[in-house]
């Protein structure tokens, strides 16, 4: 198959040999599992259980809320100990709401649980729904709820389903092992996904440094129409979905649009496997395959671990640490996130645990930029990291935006090649973080401004109503007075000159009451407004 050209990229040393040749082993069930309620992009899940509840394996722990969200299930049977704040697998180490599950080691499925009868008879939207209920998210690290992506066929005609088996990150080999060992399941998953998307054809892209995986997938795909397994060059970031689209279709996804808008959908092999498990075995996303590697790990290997396992458990199973690691990373070394300590759980999107030694990190002292433009050459997006960093160094975020920092995908190619060891990606992360905060603040300011305006208008109209009532009252009084003065005669004309001090006091009193009533009515109004806000 003819491949199209692409821009940028780097060739980091693959370093997959330590793990790629060992079969996937299964981690023994840990005594406790820590399941964050937000393991995906979008709204956090809403807990369905309370502390003290006994839950079966596969039972729903938290349901998704909102359009873009994913539920969380119990990876094993046991008792919910607490639903509390627990350190998230995140560079900041900040806490996130987490269901803490004490396992009983029995791994009981719910008595009501049955395997699905025939996944092949499902209609596309039923597949999307099932996948959504199973809590499947993008397993390549993006953690975007897969059901949302599957539902896109409702809006766009999908032409090509691309299965991302490139696994371009160094060290990681979990997708490689998955393709080698579970190719038939993957092919089923691909066919079901293609059916859900009503895709005309499917393409499995595997980097050419994984010949065994390519052979296994080709063999399993033999005889299936419109399913191509292709080799793509080994060059980071081949696994960037938009890069794959550019290479395979020769087209680019317009900025701000989804890839479905050009008729392409990209899914990771891990995701496809989870989809297959959800549809054919009826298993929600309970476990995933991860790579445990890095110079500080005694026995690097690929492991199938339940979601919610602590990093420390995994490291212990892999023989512990040889030496104090310089960095503990969740995910790959290029795009993975540093984690503050080993007491954080693995989540659905964690593709690996790396304990990297200082020698591997090779992070020399930062030097001034000499504008060697290697970053410009390496950037797959076509940005000029050198110029953006120069502006961000002076906190000139708008200047960096002018150079397109908001288009940065954080692939780390620029930092990787930088001979001055400048933390370019952190500069861009910082800029994007500030931009996000700005956007949130601007949106909030806009909303509060509208609310303030609405309040002012309401107060003004109340005042107007009060004035009108007062005017009416004055008129009334005037009439009465006239009546009193001129008994049994016809109504007199208005008397505007008459002082109305006593009336004023009365209206004021009434006004205050009206205000309180208005306050009360406002109380009922407010929840509506706050709903609009959220």
């Amino acid at each position, binding site marked *: 198959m003819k491949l199209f050209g692409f821009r940028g990229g780097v060739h980091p040393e693959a370093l997959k040999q330590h793990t790629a040749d060992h079969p996937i082993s299964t981690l023994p069930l840990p005594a406790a599992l820590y399941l964050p309620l937000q393991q995906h992009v979008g709204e956090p899940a809403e807990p369905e259980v309370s502390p003290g509840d006994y839950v079966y394996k596969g039972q729903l722990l938290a349901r998704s809320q909102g359009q873009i969200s994913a539920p969380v299930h119990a990876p094993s049977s046991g008792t919910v100990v607490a639903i509390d704040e627990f350190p998230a697998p995140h560079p900041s180490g900040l806490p996130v709401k987490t269901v803490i599950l004490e396992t009983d080691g029995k791994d009981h499925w719910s008595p009501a649980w049955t395997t699905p009868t025939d996944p092949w008879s499902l209609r596309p939207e039923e597949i999307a729904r099932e996948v959504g209920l199973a809590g499947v998210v993008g397993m390549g690290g993006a953690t975007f709820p897969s059901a949302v992506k599957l539902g896109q066929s409702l809006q766009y005609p999908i032409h090509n389903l691309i299965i991302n088996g490139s696994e371009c990150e160094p060290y990681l080999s979990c997708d490689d092992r998955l393709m080698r060992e579970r190719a038939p399941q993957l092919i089923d998953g691909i066919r079901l996904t293609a059916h859900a998307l009503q895709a005309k054809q499917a393409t499995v892209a595997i980097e050419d440094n994984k010949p065994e995986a390519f052979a296994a997938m080709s063999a399993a795909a033999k005889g299936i129409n419109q399913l191509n397994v292709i080799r793509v060059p080994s060059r980071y970031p081949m696994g960037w979905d938009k890069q794959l689209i550019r290479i395979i279709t020769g087209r680019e996804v317009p900025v701000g649009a989804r890839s479905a808008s050009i008729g392409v959908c990209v899914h990771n092999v891990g995701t496809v496997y989870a989809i297959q498990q959800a549809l054919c075995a009826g298993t929600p996303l309970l476990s995933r395959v991860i790579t445990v590697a890095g110079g500080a790990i005694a026995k690097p290997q690929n492991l199938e671990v339940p979601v919610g396992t602590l990093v420390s458990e995994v490291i212990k199973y892999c023989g512990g640490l040889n030496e104090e690691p310089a960095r503990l990373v969740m995910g790959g070394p290029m795009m993975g996130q540093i984690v503050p300590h080993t007491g954080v759980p693995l989540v659905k999107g964690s593709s690996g645990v790396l304990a990297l030694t200082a020698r591997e990190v090779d992070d020399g002292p930062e030097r001034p930029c000499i504008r060697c433009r290697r970053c410009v050459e390496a950037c797959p997006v076509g940005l000029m990291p050198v110029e953006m960093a120069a502006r961000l160094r002076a906190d000139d975020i708008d200047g960096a935006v002018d150079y397109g920092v908001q288009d940065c995908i954080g692939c780390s190619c620029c930092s990787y090649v930088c001979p001055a060891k400048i933390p370019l990606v952190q500069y861009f992360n910082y800029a994007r973080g500030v931009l996000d905060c700005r956007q949130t603040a601007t949106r909030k300011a806009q909303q509060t401004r509208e609310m303030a305006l609405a309040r002012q208008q309401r107060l003004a109209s109340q005042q107007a109503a009060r004035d009108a009532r007062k005017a009416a009252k004055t008129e009334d009084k005037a009439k009465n007075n006239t009546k009193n003065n001129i008994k049994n005669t016809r109504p007199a004309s208005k008397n505007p000159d008459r002082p109305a001090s006593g009336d004023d006091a009365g209206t004021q009193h009434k006004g205050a009451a009206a205000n309180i009533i208005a306050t009360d009515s406002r*109380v009922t109004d407010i929840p509506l407004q706050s709903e609009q806000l959220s």
Partner: protein
Amino acid sequence: MITAVTLLTLIGTLLGLGLGAVNRYLPVKEDPLRESLSALLPGTQCGQCGYAGCRQAAEALAEGTASVNLCPPGGPLLVQQLGSILGREEDSSDAGSRTPVLAWVNPDLCTGCTKCLRECPTDALVGAAKQLHVVLDDACTGCGACTDVCPTEGISMQEVPLTLTNWHWPNPQHQDSGPPKQGAV
């Protein structure tokens, strides 16, 4: 001599015409600075800046009589934005130290007097008479108007806690330690 005079006249005429054309076809909007400033301000008319409303504050800013960090509800972001528009970066130096705040009702002290409800410019406080009042975080601008009227001092301004959603990477240039900075002393 005549050539020079003619030439200069010609140049002058042409330039004058050019200026006229620019003035005619590329008009500058009426005081864009004041407009953009008042667009940035929260518009809640909370009056904490000491001006009657946000428009008056914008005018004072434009005239240069007000400091860019006059608006507590705007937070550090507003200080930065105002500073960059007005070119008064030096005033915004302490912006980083000020974190955004939100009002918080102490349930032990609230008597349900509804005084704060009337004061809040964005209707962010909800509740009824003789019932506990609650702050809607999404609507609260942190202006602090409610704290002044509370008879029991039951409303205080709390810093917005750092969570996964509002955390972002620090600028490596200002990170306290770590790799040596460019041009570090």
